[in-house]
């Protein structure tokens, strides 16, 4: 142990310094507690920022700018997402509607064709006979007139006959009375 000899004046100063040091932590703690209490009692961020600003603890403009840019970015992102989702929904709806319409039309046409075939008098025998004469020169008689030409095609309810001068006839199968090859 080192024992120093001190004058009574120096002793008094040391004691004063010690006393000051002992009171310092108490002051700091109370200031922090006050600040915390104020922060806790703040009803929103703005009040907290104001408090911080008033106390000169933080440059609140930085926080405000950060909050503003965050808000702008989030808003932009939300707008973009909403627009994309709307576009996607619109495209999907349009595609689905188109597909449905196409399917409905195709089904309806198929049903109409089937009904027509069902309602037609049995033309299968005539159609087979004519199919065997494809690309031959034939005479087809109808009630109105007899046509002569090359049989080009046989379809569900008509046959295509081309005359020597290039005239094309669509002959109704149900109106054909006689068939002859020349």
């Amino acid at each position, binding site marked *: 142990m080192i024992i120093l000899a001190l004058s009574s004046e120096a002793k008094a100063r040391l004691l004063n310094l010690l006393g000051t040091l002992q009171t310092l932590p108490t002051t700091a703690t109370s200031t922090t507690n006050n600040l915390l209490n104020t922060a806790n009692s703040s009803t929103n961020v703005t009040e907290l920022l104001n408090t911080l600003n008033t106390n000169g603890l933080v440059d609140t403009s930085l926080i405000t700018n950060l909050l503003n840019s965050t808000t702008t970015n989030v808003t932009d992102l939300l707008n973009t997402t909403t627009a994309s989702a709307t576009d996607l929904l619109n495209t999907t709806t349009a595609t689905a509607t188109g597909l449905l319409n196409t399917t409905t039309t195709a089904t309806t046409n198929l049903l109409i064709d089937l009904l027509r075939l069902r309602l037609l008098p049995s033309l299968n025998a005539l159609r087979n006979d004519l199919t065997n004469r494809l690309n031959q020169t034939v005479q087809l008689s109808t009630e109105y007139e007899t046509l002569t030409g090359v049989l080009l095609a046989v379809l569900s309810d008509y046959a295509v006959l081309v005359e020597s001068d290039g005239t*094309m006839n*669509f002959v109704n199968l149900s109106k054909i009375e006689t068939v002859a090859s020349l």
Partner: protein
Amino acid sequence: MFESFLAAELTKRIGTPVEIAMSDGFVEGIITSVTGNLLTILQTVGYGYGTTTTPLTISIPAINFVTFSPVA
């Protein structure tokens, strides 16, 4: 190539001049529309049925044959 049914094939040829033979006569005209089993033409020659000023509607099953003349 050709459509399976006469009505469908005639639909493809709307605007084309044709001659249409029924059992007891024939008409000349331009196809204006096809609706189900009905064909509508605007007659270009005034014999046969109806007049040239009003459209003529023809039942497709009643047609004997349809004639397309080669392009002159």
